[in-house]
Each structure stands twice: as C-alpha cells, then as structure tokens.
C-alpha cells in the first residue's frame, strides 16, 4: 500500500510494519491459515508474497497447535516467524504449544535459546458471529509467564508495537480488533519502535479515569466526548501492553481523579479487568472516592442476533451511565448522539 500522507489506517500501519521488518531482516516470515490468499488477512499482508516470495508469506494447512509449535521451532532455529490467527478462538486449539512449549522453552533451555516468535490474532466484534467467534482472551495469555501480550488501539501503536514485537527475542502475542482496521491516525515516517510494556494517556482529563483495552478505548473516547458537553472530564489510559503491565500512568491518573472505570474488551470474571482493578485498589489504597467499576462482556456467550449481541457488548453508553452513577449525576439525554455500530464504525482520526 502506498502512503499518501502521515494519516494512515490501522490496516496500513500493520502492513507497513510487516513490509519494513521483512525488508530489514531476511529471517522474518509470515504464515498461517489464509495468510497468502487474495483477502490477505483484511489486506494486512497485501503485497508481501509478491515482494518477498511465497517462502516468506504463505497459507498453511488448518492445524493451529502445530502452526504455533512450528513457529517456535523456526524461532529457536534462527528465524523470526510471524504466525497469524484470524480469530482468537482458533488459538484455543493452540494453547498446548503456546503455554506448554512456547512460553517456557527459553527458560527450559537454561536461557540458551531465543524465541523471537510473534503471534498476531484478530479479535471480535464481527457481525452476527455468534458464540464461538467472539472471544478476547488477553487474560489467558497474560496469566502465563513468558508470553508478552500487546493490544494496540491506534495506527501508530499498531505499527510501533508490531515492530518491537518482531524484534523481541521473546514470544509476543498481538491482538488486533477488526473494527479498528479502517480507523486512521497519524503515523510518522519512519515510525520508531514503541517499547513493549509502556502505557499511554489517550486523553487527559480530571474527573474520572477510564482504563480501556483495544476497541474499548474508542468507546471511552466517545464517552469522554459526550460527557465533556455536560462538564465531566474523562482521562483515558490505554495500557497498550497487557503483559508485562505498566500500571504507573493509570495509578497516577486515578490518584488524581479518585474515580476509576476499567473497560475491558472481554469477560470480567478472572479477566484482565480484575488484574487492573486489583492493582488500582492496591496502589491507590485510600485515594479512591468510589469503588472501581468494571465494564466488559456480559456473563454469557455472545449471541448472533443483533438485539442480544448489542446487550452482550458494552459501549460508550455503558461507560457514560456508569460514570453518572459514580458521580451521582442525572442521566444525560443521549438521543442526539451518534454511537458506533457495525454499520457506523469509528473511522478515526485518533
């Protein structure tokens, strides 16, 4: 994809990171189910097989666990594999290799071998995808020592973090939300690698801190925009890296605002939101003016039908209502507001 300006899409940011890293290092290759076909993983792998050959960008048989193990073997033998999984639920087939093998192979070799393996995986919200294709498993990946987990929200984070992931000597899982692919934002050329393990303030504010992951940051920014009109100022903090977690900015923010909402793109029970919440309570002990509010998937399976699907996923509206409750404000009239949906996606700019 040719760049017209510094404002590019998330999709193109990923494509650029891949192209540049494959140019830089002949050991980088990308593979997985459907990676080489004409759809090119939402076009994120566009042009790669043409430019680098089908030995460096190719489709594979359907065998997720083996694909991850294959990446481990290639990584410890000197290459820098990138393995793509179109939906995160397919990684449930690969938990064995990920957690029994990839996570600890370097440790088990007495630190002799390196495992520069990147797993890209795409998370939901699709369109009537129903209960199998709508998971978001960041808490699983983060629970196991030895795996780094990244969830970029903006195009520049997507590019900068993917570059870092590829150059990292440890396995990194990068989770991309498919509703973000079209969103645009400024990505400088060249984009410096963004260190794994650093959070970011997406929006400064004074009244309530919202800590979001992936798409939920878009919802948080929308909530901030709406509430700004009523004089409530939200600070939005994006962890960007789920593990290892940098909680410094969020803690500082909550100490300032005294109120915290964690809006995770995932289930609550034993989820990443529980980890964040725990750390906020611990590190802001005595500074909180209200209990932390967690927002995430409804405690059920994602249904196909739209009215129920809309209840499963939480949005800016849920964040707004939670804040109103927290601050004991009356319910804002939202009838004039335009919220995001499959048909009306956030397109940026960030």
């Amino acid at each position: 994809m040719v760049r017209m300006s510094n404002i590019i899409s998330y999709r193109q940011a990923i494509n650029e990171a891949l192209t540049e890293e494959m140019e830089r290092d002949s050991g980088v290759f990308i593979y997985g189910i459907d990676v080489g076909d004409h759809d090119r993983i939402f076009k994120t792998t566009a042009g790669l097989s043409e430019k680098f050959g089908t030995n460096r960008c190719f489709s594979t048989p359907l065998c997720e666990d083996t694909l991850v193990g294959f990446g481990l073997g290639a990584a410890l033998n000197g290459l820098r594999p990138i393995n793509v999984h179109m939906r995160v639920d397919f990684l449930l087939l690969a938990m064995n290799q990920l957690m029994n093998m990839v996570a600890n192979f370097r440790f088990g070799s007495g630190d002799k071998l390196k495992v520069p393996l990147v797993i890209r995986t795409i998370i939901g919200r699709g369109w009537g995808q129903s209960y199998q294709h709508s998971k978001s498993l960041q808490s699983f990946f983060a629970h196991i020592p030895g795996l780094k987990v990244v969830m970029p929200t903006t195009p520049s984070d997507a590019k900068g973090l993917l570059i870092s992931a590829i150059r990292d000597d440890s396995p990194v899982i990068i989770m991309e939300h498919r509703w973000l692919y079209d969103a645009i934002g400024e990505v400088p050329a060249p984009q410096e690698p963004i260190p794994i393990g650093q959070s970011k303030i997406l929006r400064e504010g004074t009244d309530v801190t919202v800590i979001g992951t992936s798409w939920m940051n878009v919802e948080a920014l929308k909530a901030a925009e709406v509430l700004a009109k009523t004089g409530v100022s939200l600070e939005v903090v994006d962890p960007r890296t789920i593990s290892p977690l940098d909680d410094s900015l969020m803690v500082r923010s909550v100490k300032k605002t005294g109120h915290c909402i964690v809006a995770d793109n995932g289930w609550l029970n034993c989820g990443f939101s529980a980890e964040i919440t725990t750390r906020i309570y611990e590190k802001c002990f005595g500074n909180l003016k209200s209990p932390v509010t967690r927002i995430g998937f409804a405690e059920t399976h994602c249904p196909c039908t739209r009215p129920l699907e809309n209840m499963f996923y939480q949005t800016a509206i849920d964040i707004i209502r939670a804040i109103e409750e927290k601050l004991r404000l009356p319910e804002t009239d939202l009838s004039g507001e335009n919220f995001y949906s499959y048909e009306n996606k956030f397109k940026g700019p960030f």
Partner: protein
Amino acid sequence: MVSNARRLLNFELYKKLYLIRRTEEKIIEHYPENEMKTPMHLYLGGEAIAAGVCHALGQNNQVFCTYRSHGVYLANTMETKRFFGELCGKATGMAKGRGGSMHLSSPETGFLGASAIVASVIPVAIGSAFANQYRNNGKIVAVFFGDGAVEEGNFWEALNMACLLKLPVLFVCEDNGFAVHTPISQRHGYDSICRIVEKFNCSVMETETTDVEIIHDLTQNSLSLIRKENKPGFLYAKYYRYRRHVGIENDFESGYRTRAEFEKWLTVDSIHLQRVKLLAAGVSEEEIVSVEKEISTQIEKDIKSAQKAPFPNREDLYERKDGQNV
C-alpha cells in the same frame, strides 16, 4: 423399468434437493435486505450429499455438521420456519437467534448440532456414537466435515478412537477442493485421504457423483456395513461449491478458481440430473412442478413469518438453568 419404490425414493430425494436449492436461492434474494444478520456459508453445489446421506439416515439416526449447515438441516428436518427464524435472529429460531446460520440444530429429529470451528464436531459426534453403542439402541451418528477438517488433529484423533472402539459412526467428508480460498495442493501432504483412512479399521467409500440416488445408495451400504462389520464408515464425496466461501456472491474474479470449472460442474448439477431422472422414470412434469410450488410457497411463507416474528428477550441472552443445581 424403474420400480415404484425407486420412483418414490427418487421423488423424495428430489424434494430434499429442491428444498435446499430453493432455500439457498431465496437467501441470496433476501440477504441484501439485511434482515439475516448472520454470515452465510451457502450449500449450493453440495445438495446431493446432504440430501442423499440424510435421506438414508432418516430421523432415527443422528447427525452433526459444520457451519455450512443449511443442507443438512433442511434435508434432516424438511422445515423452514425455525430455520428462517434463526437466520433472522428471531425468537422463533430453533436457538432463539443465538446461533444464526452457522449453528443450526434440531435435536428432535436427530440433528444434534453444528459448529463454526473446523473439525470440532467430529470428536463430539463419536462421543454421541459411543452413547448409542453404550445404550445399544442401534442408532448411527453421521458427521459432516470438509476437506479442510482432515488437516486438524481433531479429525485424526477421533478417527483413531472411533475405529478403536468400533463406534457406529459414519464420517462424511465433503471435498470441495478448497478451505476458504486455499486449494488442497497447498494443504495436503498426500495424494488421497481415502488411501490413508482405509488403513484404519473402517470401511471407505468414495464418489465424485452429483447423482443423489447414488449417494443415497452408497450411504445405505455404508450404514449396513457399519452395522454388520461393527466398524465405522468413511464416505468421501467430491463436489463443487457454487458460491464464495462465505457470502452470497460468485467469486470467479478473485482468481483462485475459474468460471469454466464451475460451468463444467453445472452440466451435472444434481437438481437438474434428478429432475431429468424423474421425468425419464415416468413422473409427470405437473407432479414435479406441483411439488416445487409447494416447497416454494412454504419457503416464502416462512421467510415472511420470520421477518414478522419478534426478537428474543433479554432473558434469552442467558442460558436457562432449569433443573440444575445452580
């Protein structure tokens, strides 16, 4: 001379073929109206397999299949009310709209379920077959899957276990040559899956026909063998997927397959073949048209009623826990 029983059988098979074909056509027609908000994996091209196998199975046996489940559902149930209810995400759907196109089921008639995870129903199917063996109830379980599924560990593990335990199960491999857009040549490290599977303790049957009667008869033979020889069957059937992997359009312009190949397969289109056969066997054009009309009317009516049906309630977002401890 065609026997009366055969004529009747062929007519029944035709009804199944026609129901599937017509339903898929109607989905293509109505999908752009955006009332069926569910990803569609159309079964056009495969009709003879679902119709033939499911007719041979009847409703006393059981069946599982993949997300490409319209054919099996329709051939198994012959109904379209709960079907369109589900596609439209309505409370009248068999799963109250929770599942959509990829997760049809009809336990009442033996269609136990479908899954969007490739190969994942195969282990489940052999477990159900074990339950039948355990209860000694004579039921056989058939499980449908594609040429992509045989790459997944689940397939091999379940095949091994079924052959070991001599389970009453029929594996039905529907080979359309592609997993999404990737051809078998980029996915299989061998020439023929049948040559491999036949080295397991099971009976293998192989066909490229689009003649539903042949598939029906092959299935009957497989079912008898499963019962007689007390071991699993493996039925391998080639077909051509008429439309794109998911969605309603053609995709010949994508470059991974040609219109010419499609047109070759069209000359042996299963619905066409079967209609010609019926006429040759002495069924009148009127009889056929009357049945076709009946089916079309049923479909139209059920689409309309689905469109009018209510959406499910908030409580349907959650599994019902009747009779459970918690």
